C-alpha cells in the first residue's frame, strides 16, 4: 500500500477528469476573462482573408469588444502584415508601411472580429462545453501549466458561430488543452473542412496573457 502511494505521488501530475466536465470548466473560466492574447497558425489547407491566403494571426483582446490583430498573409510570394484595431465599435486598418484609416460599412463587417471568439453567448465560453463525443486523451504540460488534453467534435454551425468568416462544410475535430488548476483553455487545434471551398484545413490556437494589462487605443488616422 505504501509502495503504491509512493508510486502515485512519484508520478505526480494531473489525475484524469471527466472530459465533458473539463470542457464545461474551460468554458466557465473563459467567460470570466477580461483580456487575453491569441496566436493562430494555419498549418494545413488554404484559408483566405480578404482575398489573401492567411498564414497566421496574432491578437490582443480586451473584452468585450476591443482587439488589436495582425494578420500575416501571402501577397504574391511575400508575407505582409495587415493590422486591424477594433475599438469603440470602429474598425481601423493599417496595411504595411502606411497609417491607420477607418474601414466602414460592409467592408468593416467582412473583417473578422477576434473579440467575438470570446463572446459569452456565441464564442468559446458557450461553444466549448457543447462539444460532441468528448474524450479524455491525457495530461500534458504546456509551458509551466499542467493541462488536461480533451478531444471533441463541433458542428459547422458551432464553428461559424465562433466567427462568421469560418465556414465549414462539415464537422470539425478539436483537441483542447484545459488548465488543470485554473481551467483556462491554453491551446486548441482544429481540423476540418473549413478551408477555402470546403477544403481540409488545420489551425493551431495558442492562448496566453490571461487578464494581463492591455492597452488598445483608437488609432489616430
Amino acid at each position, binding site marked *: 500500500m505504501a509502495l503504491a502511494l509512493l508510486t502515485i505521488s512519484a508520478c505526480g501530475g494531473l489525475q484524469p477528469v471527466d472530459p465533458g466536465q473539463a470542457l464545461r470548466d474551460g468554458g466557465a473560466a473563459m467567460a470570466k476573462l477580461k483580456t487575453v492574447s491569441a496566436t493562430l497558425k494555419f498549418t494545413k489547407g488554404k484559408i483566405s482573408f480578404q482575398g489573401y491566403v492567411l498564414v497566421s494571426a496574432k491578437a490582443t483582446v480586451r473584452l468585450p469588444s476591443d482587439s488589436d490583430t495582425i494578420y500575416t498573409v501571402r501577397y504574391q510570394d511575400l508575407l*505582409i*502584415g495587415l493590422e486591424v484595431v477594433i475599438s469603440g465599435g470602429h474598425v481601423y486598418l493599417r496595411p*504595411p508601411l*502606411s*497609417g491607420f484609416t477607418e474601414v466602414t460599412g460592409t467592408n468593416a463587417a467582412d473583417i473578422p472580429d477576434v473579440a467575438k471568439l470570446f463572446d459569452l453567448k456565441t464564442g468559446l465560453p458557450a461553444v466549448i462545453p457543447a462539444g460532441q463525443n468528448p474524450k479524455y486523451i491525457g495530461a500534458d504540460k504546456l509551458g509551466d501549466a499542467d493541462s488536461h488534453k480533451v478531444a471533441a467534435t463541433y458542428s459547422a454551425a458551432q464553428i461559424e458561430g465562433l466567427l462568421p468568416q469560418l465556414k465549414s462544410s462539415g464537422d470539425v475535430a478539436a483537441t483542447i488543452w484545459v488548465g488543470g488548476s485554473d481551467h483556462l483553455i491554453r491551446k486548441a487545434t482544429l481540423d476540418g473542412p473549413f478551408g477555402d471551398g470546403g477544403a481540409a484545413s488545420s489551425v493551431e490556437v495558442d492562448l496566453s496573457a490571461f487578464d494581463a494589462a492591455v492597452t488598445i487605443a483608437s488609432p489616430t488616422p
Partner: protein
Amino acid sequence: MTPRSLLLGLAGAGLFVAALDAYLVVTLLPAMTADVGLTIDRFEQATPIVTGFLCGYVIALPLLGAYSDVRGRAPVYALCMAVFAAGSAVTATAGLLSFAGLPWLVAGRLLQGLGGGGLVPLSLALAADLYRNGGRTFALGSVSALQEAGSVFGPLYGATLASAASALGGWRFVFWLNLPLAAVCATGLLLASRDRDTTSTPASDSIDWKSAALLGVGLGLLVVALYPDDPTNRATSGLFIPLGSLSLIVLALYGWRQVRSLEPLIPRALLRSRRFIGVGAANLLIGGALMVALVDVPILGRLVFGLDQLGSGLLLTQFLLGVPIGAVLGGLLAGRMGGRLTAVVGMVCSAVAFLQMAGWQAGELALRVGPIRPADIALGACGLGFGMVIAPLTAAVLELTRAQNHGLASSLVVLARVMGMLVGLSALTAFGLFRFRQILGTPQLTDPDVRSRVDHLARLVAAAFLQEYREIFTIAAGLCILAAVVAMATMSNGSSRALSASSPPR
C-alpha cells in the same frame, strides 16, 4: 585534355557550383524570407541572408588562401567543398523546425560562404601555379569566367529549379542539390591531383594563424557593426560603436603583429606597393557598385516592373551575362593593351550604363529598338565592364608576389572586392530604406476595402522604389568613375604584358 587543364577544369567546376549559390539567393529571397516568417515591412532583416554568405567569404579568404599555400590546393579545396555542403544542408532546413528560423538560415549561409570563399583564391592560385609563363592571364580569365558564369546562371538557375522542384521543397531543393555536386567536384579534384604536387614551394613551414585569424575576425566584426538593424532610424547597427571599436582594436592588433613579425602574413613590400593599395581600393569601390546591380535589379524587376521570380532572375541575367564575357575579354585585352587601360575602359563602360539605368521609367521594359530592349543593352554593358576589370586587377597583384604567395595574393584581391560588396550592401540597405521611407512617407489609404488599399499601396511603393533606385544608380556610376581614376593613378600600363615566374615584390 592535358592533366593541368583537367585539374583546372575540376577546380573551376566546384567554383562554378559555389558561385551559382552566391547569387541565386537574390531571386529566392522573397520565398526564403516568407518561410522563416519575415514580413515585407521588416524586410531589412533579410539582409543577413546575403551578408552572412559574404561574411563567410571575408573570414575564409585570408585564411584559406594562405593555408593552401602550405598544405596544397587539393586537400584544402576538398575541405572547402565539405564546409560548403554542410552549410547548404543547414540552409535547406531553415523554417522546418521551430528553432530553425532566421538565425539558423543565416548560420547556414555563413557556412556556405566559408566554404565557397576559400574556393576563389584556391582556384585562381591553382591557375597561377599551373600556368607559370605564357597563358597565365588567359587561365586567370577563364577561371574568373567560370566563377562569373556561375553568377550568370545563379539567379536563373535558382528561380527555374525552385519552380520545377516545387513539389520537392522549392527553394530548399536548390540547396540540397549542392551536396551531391560538392561531393563530385571534391572527389574528382582529389583523384586528379593524386600524381601531381599542387603545393607551391612553401615560403615557410608554418603559417601565421594568429594574424590570419585576427584579420578574419576583425573584418567580420566590421561587417556586423555596419549591419543596419533598424534602417528607419539609423544607418548602422545599434552596436556600431562597441563592435566597430572592437573591430578596430582587433585590426590594430593584426597591424602590430605585421610590423613586428619577421615573416608577416602579408609581405611588407606588398603593403608599401602603390599598385597593391590602388588595386585594393579599386576593388573596394567595384564591390560596392556591383552590389547595387546584384541586389537592386531583381527588386526593381519585382516591385517596379511587376515581374515574377523567374522574370526578375532573367532581368538580372542580362547584367550577369556581360560579366563572364567581359572577364574573358578583359584577360585577352590586358595581354595586348595593358591592364591599366583595360581596367579603366571597363569601369567607364559600367559607369555609363549605370547612368543610363538612372533614367529608367516604370514602363522601361516595354521599350524596344527592333527586337532588343535598351534596358537589356544597358544591363549587359554594365556587366561587361565589371567583367573586364577582373583579370587585369588580379594579374596586377600576382605580379607583385612570388609563386608561393599566390594563394594569399589572389585571396586579398577578392577580399577587397567582397569587403566592398559588404560595405556597399550595408550602406545601400541603410540609404535605400531611409530614402524609400522618406519618399513614401506614411500614406493614409482610404480605399473602401482591404484589397484595394493593398493594391494602392503597391503602386505607391513601386513609384517610391523607382525614384530611390534612380539615385542609387547614379551613386553607383560615381563609384565606377572613382575606381577608374584610382586604377589610372596606381596601375602601370605595362602590367599583365610580361610576367616572370617569380617576380619580386616592388
